[in-house]
């Protein structure tokens, strides 16, 4: 196992918390995104990043959760991706919601039928990220963009 793999394993296994609550931004695109720095418990400097993304109008709702460590996605959850995912090493396919974890990033199906907040909690739990009190949800649905 390489040094980076060890670092990732240690990072994922360590309890973490987010630096501050995330804010969703859509920038007039088809999806909305949010992110927050991740800091290991007892540390002051963020060493990772929690990245959230959600399609704003696709049905069924499509969203993803990622832990980014040194600019690499090391833990991911893609909910209702809407297309097949092929695992490069085995050429097996997955259509449903799935998890991916460093180092092999093979997609592992998860057939639970959960709502957004439950998937978020499941992801925070698996990533060992302390559940923050404020957990803003994405706004789904077509936005009219009125200047109110």
């Amino acid at each position: 196992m390489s040094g980076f793999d060890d670092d990732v394993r240690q990072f994922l296994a360590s309890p973490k918390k987010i630096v501050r609550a995330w804010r969703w931004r859509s920038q007039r695109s088809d999806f909305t995104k949010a992110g927050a720095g991740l800091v290991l418990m007892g540390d002051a400097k963020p060493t990772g990043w929690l990245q959230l993304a959600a399609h704003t109008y696709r049905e069924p709702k499509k969203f993803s959760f990622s832990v980014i460590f040194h600019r690499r996605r090391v833990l991911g959850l893609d909910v209702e991706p809407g297309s097949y995912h092929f695992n490069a090493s085995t050429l097996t396919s997955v259509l449903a919601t799935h998890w991916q974890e460093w180092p092999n990033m093979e997609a592992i199906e998860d057939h639970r039928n959960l709502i957004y907040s439950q998937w978020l909690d499941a992801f925070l739990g698996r990533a060992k990220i302390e559940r923050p009190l404020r957990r803003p949800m994405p706004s789904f649905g077509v936005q009219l963009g009125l200047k109110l």
Partner: protein
Amino acid sequence: MTRTVTSEEIEAAARALITARQTNLGIELTMPVVYPNGHLVTVAVTVESGSYVVHDAGGGAMYLTSAGVQMTRQLSQRLAHLAAQYGCEFVGARMQRRCEPNQIAIAAAMVANASRTIGDRALEVRHQVESDFRVAVGEKLRSIGGKRVRDNEQVKGKHGRIYRVPHVVLDPSESRPIAFVVALPNRSVVLSHFGELWDIKGAHPDVANDVVYNEHSDIRAEDQDLLREVSTVIPLSRIPDHLNGLLAVA
């Protein structure tokens, strides 16, 4: 014994990768094109203002976001240029192309491939971040030091080896170096820079060696300690203080 596979079977299997279904996006087509994470690219066919539009519904950009890549204005411009190579447009983080009804299949192939090239950017991001960091260090030095900062200068080490130093800070007369500055984007270049700076220090003991490191990279305290043997180690955010001090003294 290996089973013989006919061309018909292969064609049928390949065609089976393509699926089309009506969703709230329009007609969603799954194409036999794969993002680097293994997801098949899907494109949507819709009718807008009386003409057909094939687009990726932001799928490529959303994939990039999930991979931790920030969509900067420069990246957006680069993607727009890439889109043009496929005859597509990259507008509002969406890859799209207008077409006639009889062109939908080929337009879908072009949009899918253009969307995948967005995804490919995730593979290049580390390199891009490193190069952006080097550029950021250079810009910061020049904004403070002006004409007293020179780029990419040749410097001879004690043992005769010649090095290209990314930035050199000059004295007020702009005739003599007072500091050699190296940008350190990540841990992998610590040892090579250590050797280079050690050799240069031997030939130019009166010139300061400064290493500017990326606080958000994988550089550890022990890497910084090693480099302190041959240089002053500064985080990017402290360049203004450090450089102003250097310029004031010289």
